[in-house]
């Protein structure tokens, strides 16, 4: 009996050996499995670069990052050291174990060609956007549009005023600032290195960022702790 290739899931990209460092080009997507106990360090190489980020339970991708669960569990909208990234089933996916910046966004979601038409006008339609990165990169792991939910924006600064007014304002990051996340189970991470050029989230000039996966019980540089 033969198996239909049409119904076979896409071959998932290999899980990297650690330590492993990847440079994500400006405007590009990236993804990886990070195994339980390993850490993922994001480095804002040039400063003020928003990194759109989704995380899934690698064993069951229906369990995925939930901005609302993360917000109501910690009682606040900003992420920093100690924040636990919770799933839609309220289970821990990753924990922020180090943060040079102090404030990251859970509210603003990803830019898209569609929302850009509302925010700036239809002249932006041909510009690349994070949702397209997420769709293309997610497809490599068998994910589709239904699997995209409100995401984290590392390094993005989105204050909320007393009257509810919110907006993406000038960033707090600077060249070389890092955020380190520890995987609380085997997770799949999707990244869009944000290509937005119509607001200050990338200082109006998208730049590369660096991703480093480090083995459990090791430091950023890969040495045993």
């Amino acid at each position, binding site marked *: 009996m033969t198996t239909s290739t049409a119904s076979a899931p896409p071959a998932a990209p290999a899980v990297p050996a650690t330590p492993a460092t990847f440079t994500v080009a400006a405007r590009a997507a990236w993804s990886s499995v990070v195994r339980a106990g390993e850490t993922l360090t994001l480095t804002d190489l040039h400063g003020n670069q928003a990194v759109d980020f989704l995380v899934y339970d690698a064993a069951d991708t229906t369990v995925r990052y*939930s901005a*609302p669960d993360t917000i109501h569990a910690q009682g*606040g909208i900003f992420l920093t050291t100690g924040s636990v990234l919770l799933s839609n089933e*309220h289970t821990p996916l990753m924990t922020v174990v180090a943060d040079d910046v102090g*404030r990251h966004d859970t509210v603003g979601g990803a830019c898209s060609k569609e929302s850009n038409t509302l925010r700036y006008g239809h002249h932006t339609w041909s510009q690349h956007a994070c949702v397209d990165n997420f769709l293309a990169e997610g497809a490599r792991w068998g994910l589709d549009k*239904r699997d995209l939910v*409100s995401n984290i924006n590392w390094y993005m600064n989105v204050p909320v005023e007393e009257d509810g*007014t919110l907006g993406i304002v000038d960033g707090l990051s600077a060249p070389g600032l890092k955020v380190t996340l520890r995987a609380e189970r085997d997770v799949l991470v999707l990244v869009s290195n944000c290509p937005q050029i119509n607001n200050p989230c990338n200082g109006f000039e998208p730049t590369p960022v660096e991703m480093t996966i480090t083995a459990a019980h090791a430091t950023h540089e890969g040495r045993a702790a």
Partner: protein
Amino acid sequence: MATATTYGARDHARAQAGTRADAMPVVPARDWAEPPCEAGHLVWAETVAGGNYTHRVLARGTELRLTDLTGSACAHLLLFVDGRPWERLNVADTVKVQWNAHLGENRLLLSDQGRVLASIVADTTGGRHDALCGTSTLVRNVRRYGAGTAESPSPAGRELFKLAAAKNGLTPRDLPPSLSFFQGVRISEDGDVRFLGPAGPGASVTLRAEQDVTVLIANAPHPSDPQDAYVCGPLEVLAWRAAPTGAKDPLWDATPEGRRAFQNTADFLASRGIQ
């Protein structure tokens, strides 16, 4: 009444007809005692118990009024385009595009495709709603109340959404972050979430469907509700035929972002042959 035979069991079942419960749909909806519109225009009339759920497909232009009868309901809401459920409520776009985290009168509920799913046309609460904290989960309700499954005394909103979704051919993958009405939340300058609680008995909010939408509603305590007990009162749900927002309505032009969202919606519907 004897139920030992099929005839007896049938008589027993039929004798229950006409029983009234505090929480139930009234069918047909036009039989609802005090309609907020012309009686013949009512298309959905239901009281949803605390810890329960409901769902409907609403035609474009239908208005949907939710009422917190006792001041202790919390209406968690999700919207999907009928027949194309991959276009659905996007809370992040809803708050980002409109430059505001609060929900209230004249706010639009946006899809991930730059279009309007529904607009908020009336709100007696002064915006005591929430777009940031989502709904409750089984894990958290077990921790807080001792149980969280749908059949338990303290069902989690997400468990109720899963059932409502399943009845519309949708799975847990299809459930994005949701909105909730009647239990307000505010954000302080340092980002802290402050729970305001209810606006009081009789508070209502009215939505208008701007496309044909599948509506899922879970009535469950807000996840930040500080009470030890699972307290959730009945939610009244009434919907009636009305008209979608048109280009001459003030709401159409209320903001430049909203105008483009209405224009995108109208353009999309026009190309499908829907006026």
